[in-house]
C-alpha cells in the first residue's frame, strides 16, 4: 500500500484523524492520530494533509533499533522506544507526532483506515489494495 494525498479535495473534516486514533490506539482522541489536517485560512483557503511517507529516516536515527520496516511500513516497537525524540527531529516531513501522555511517537503504519473512511477520497491507496466504497 502506498498513500497518495490529494489535498485539493480535502475538506478538513478530520474523519481520518478520528478513525486513525480510534483504530490504532483505541482512543477517541485525534491528538493521538498519525495523520493530521491543517488549513491555510483565511487566505488562500486550502487544506494540507500530513502523514508519514515511509522514507525510513526515523529508523536510521533510532539509537535502540525500535523502528523497523515490516512489509511496506516502518513500525515503532512501543516497548523498545525510549522516547528520546531523535526520530521526531530527523523527520523532514514532520509526521512523527508526539503526545504528552505517550512515550513513543505516533506514526502511520499503513493500516488503511483513513483511505476507507475519507469521505472525499483525499487519501487514497496508489497501489489499489484498499479501495474505498465512495
Amino acid at each position, binding site marked *: 500500500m502506498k498513500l497518495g494525498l490529494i489535498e485539493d479535495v480535502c475538506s478538513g473534516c478530520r474523519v481520518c484523524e478520528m478513525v486513525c486514533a480510534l483504530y490504532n490506539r*483505541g482512543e477517541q*482522541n485525534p491528538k493521538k492520530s498519525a495523520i493530521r489536517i491543517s488549513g491555510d485560512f483565511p487566505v488562500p*483557503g486550502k487544506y494540507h494533509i500530513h502523514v508519514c511517507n515511509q522514507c525510513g529516516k526515523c529508523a536510521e536515527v533510532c539509537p535502540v533499533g525500535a523502528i523497523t520496516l515490516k512489509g511496506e511500513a516502518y513500525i515503532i516497537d512501543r516497548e523498545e522506544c525510549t522516547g528520546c525524540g531523535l526520530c521526531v527531529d530527523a523527520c523532514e516531513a514532520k509526521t512523527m507526532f508526539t503526545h504528552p501522555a505517550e512515550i513513543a511517537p505516533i506514526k502511520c503504519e499503513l493500516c488503511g483506515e483513513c483511505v476507507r473512511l475519507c*469521505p472525499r477520497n483525499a487519501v487514497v491507496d496508489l497501489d489499489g489494495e484498499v479501495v474505498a*466504497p465512495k
Partner: protein
Amino acid sequence: MMNGYGGKILRIDLSSGRFEVQPTPERMAREFLGGRGFAAKLLYDGLDPATEPLSPANMVIIASGPLSGVFLPGSGKITFAAKSPATGGYGDSNMGGHLASELKYAGYDAVVISGAAEKPSYISIDDDRVEIREASKYWGRGAIETEKALLDDLGEDFRVATIGPAGEKLVRFACVSHDFGRQAGRTGIGAVLGSKKVKAIAVRGSKAIPLADPKGVLAKGREMFEACFAKPGFREWTPYGTAGVTDWVNEVGAFPTRNFQSSFFEGHKEINGQRLKEKILVTDKGCFGCPIPCGKYSRTKGIRGSGREKESVYVEGPEYETIALLGGNCGIRDIEDVAYLNHVCDELGLDTISGGNVAAFAIECYERGILNRESVGRDLAFGDAGSVAYLLEKIARREGIGDTLADGVRIAAARFGGGSERFAIHVKGLEVSGYEPRWAPAMMLSYMTADVGAHHNRSWAITHDVATGRDSLEGKADKVIELQHTRPLFDVLGVCRLQWVEIGFDLHYYEEIFPLVTGWKYTWKDLLTVSERVWNLTRAFNIKHIDGFGRSYDYPPARFSEDPVPDGPAKGKCIPREKLDLLLDEYYAKRGWSKDGRPTEATLRRLGLENVAEDLVEQGRL
C-alpha cells in the same frame, strides 16, 4: 467518569477573574444530555428573571453534547446560549467547525461565563490550564482577522471563537464566529460576550473522550459513515451545499424578497448554488467529522464603490440563509455581491440572517419615506449592494441610523413609527429566516412557536407544507411538534442534523450508537422525551423572564396575515389571523399548554420538570 462526556463543567466569573471546575452532574446529564439541554437547564437555574441580557449578571453557556467529538458523521456541533438581547428570552445558536470536539478533548462539557471583565479579554483553555488574558490588541478588529491573529499568537492547533466589532458594540444580532466562517449566528450571543468584554475563547485539548464500548463505536461509526457514502445525496447534494436549495424555494414561492414584500425573486438564478460553484468556489470546507461539507469557501472581490474592487476577498459561503436574506431580501442579484456582503457581516461579527432583514427593513422604510437621505446619510435602494454594505457598517459601529438599527427591527420599528411595525419581519424580536411563510402554514407555525424567535432550524417544515397541501391546516401542528422535538435533539446530542435532513441518513443510527458511546440505554423515544423536556423548559424560561409572555408573543408581523403575496407562485396568499389562531389552538392543546401558551402544571410534571412547575406557580406565572 461518565462515558461520552468530557466530565467537567468550567465556570468562569469574569468580575473576580476566578474560575472553578466541577464534575458534570450525572443527573443533569441523564435528564438533559448536553448541548442545548445543558444550556437551558443552566440558564433556567442560574438566572434571575430581572437579569438584563447585556448586564454582567447574564451568563453565556458554551456546551457540547455526548456525541460531540465522537467517531460518527457530523459530530462537531456546539451550542452558544444566553438570555437573548434580541428577544429578552431564552437564546441559543448552534455552530459547527472544530470547537465542540476540541472542548471535549480538553475535558469540558460546558463552559459557563458570568460577570464582566474590566478590560478587553480572551479566555484561553489549554486542557487544565485556564487563563483570562488581556485582549486589548485584538479589540476593535474583525472577527476573522482576530481568529487568524490569535492562531498566529497561540499556535495553529488551538480552536478559536471570536466576536467582531458588532459584538463589542452590543449589536443585538451580533454573532460568534469560528473556523473562518462558521457562526453561532442567531439571538445575539456575540453581544452578550461583548458586554462581558470577551473578545475570544481559545481552546486546545489533548485528552480522550471515554467511550463505553470503543470497538463498538468504531464498528458502528464506520457503518454510519458508509451509510452516508451510499446515499445518492452524498454526491448530488454536497457540491452545492445549502445554496443548492435556492431555485426550489423560489419555485415554491417561499423566497424572502425585498423585505418579505414578495416570495419570489426574479434574480434567483444569479445567486444560486450553481452560480456559486461556477464563479467563486475555492474549496469545500467541512466541520469536524462531516462527510457532506455544506461549507463552501469562496473568493470574490469588493463591490463597486467599496474601494476593494481589485482585491480578492475570501469568505465561507454564502450558504442558503445568507443568499436568501442578504441576496433576495435585499434585492441583490449577483452571487459575487452577496459573497462580499457575507464577508462584511463575517468580519463585523453580524448574523447574516438578521443583518439582511434589518438592512432590507431600513431600505423599505426609506422607500416609503419613513427614513430619508438626511436621517440615513445616503440614498438607499433594493438591489444596491452599496446600500446594504453601508448599513451593515453603520450598524456594527452604532453610528448614525445604525445605532437604532443595531437593536433589530422590533425596536427600530417602534422608534421609526410610520406604520413600519407592519413590515418589521420578526417574531419575539428575532428576525425571520429564509423561508417566506405566507403560503406555508406549518412553516408559519414553526416561526411563531420557535423558542428563540423566528428561526427555521427548530422546525424546517416548508417541505411538509409543499408535500401535504399548503392551503390546509390539517396535520400541520402535529408535524411542527414532531420536528421541534427531532431537530433540536441534534443540538442536544451535539451533532449536525444535515446528514438526516439533506441526504436522508437514517435516524435509527443515533439510537444505536448512543449506548455504545455513553453506556446508557435510551430508545429514540426516550431521546425525544429529553428534547420535549428541553422545549418546555425554554418556554418556561420565557414565561419566567418576559412579563406578560404568552400567546401574544407567538404572532408573526401583520404583513404575513394581512398582505397577500403580490406576485410569483404564491400570488394572492397569506394566512389570516383567524387561521393563525386555529393553528395556535391546536398546537397548544397538543403540547399540553393552556390557551395562552403556557405549559400546564401537569405537562411540566409529566416531563420531570416538577421544580419548574413549582417555581412558576410560586412566581404566579403559571
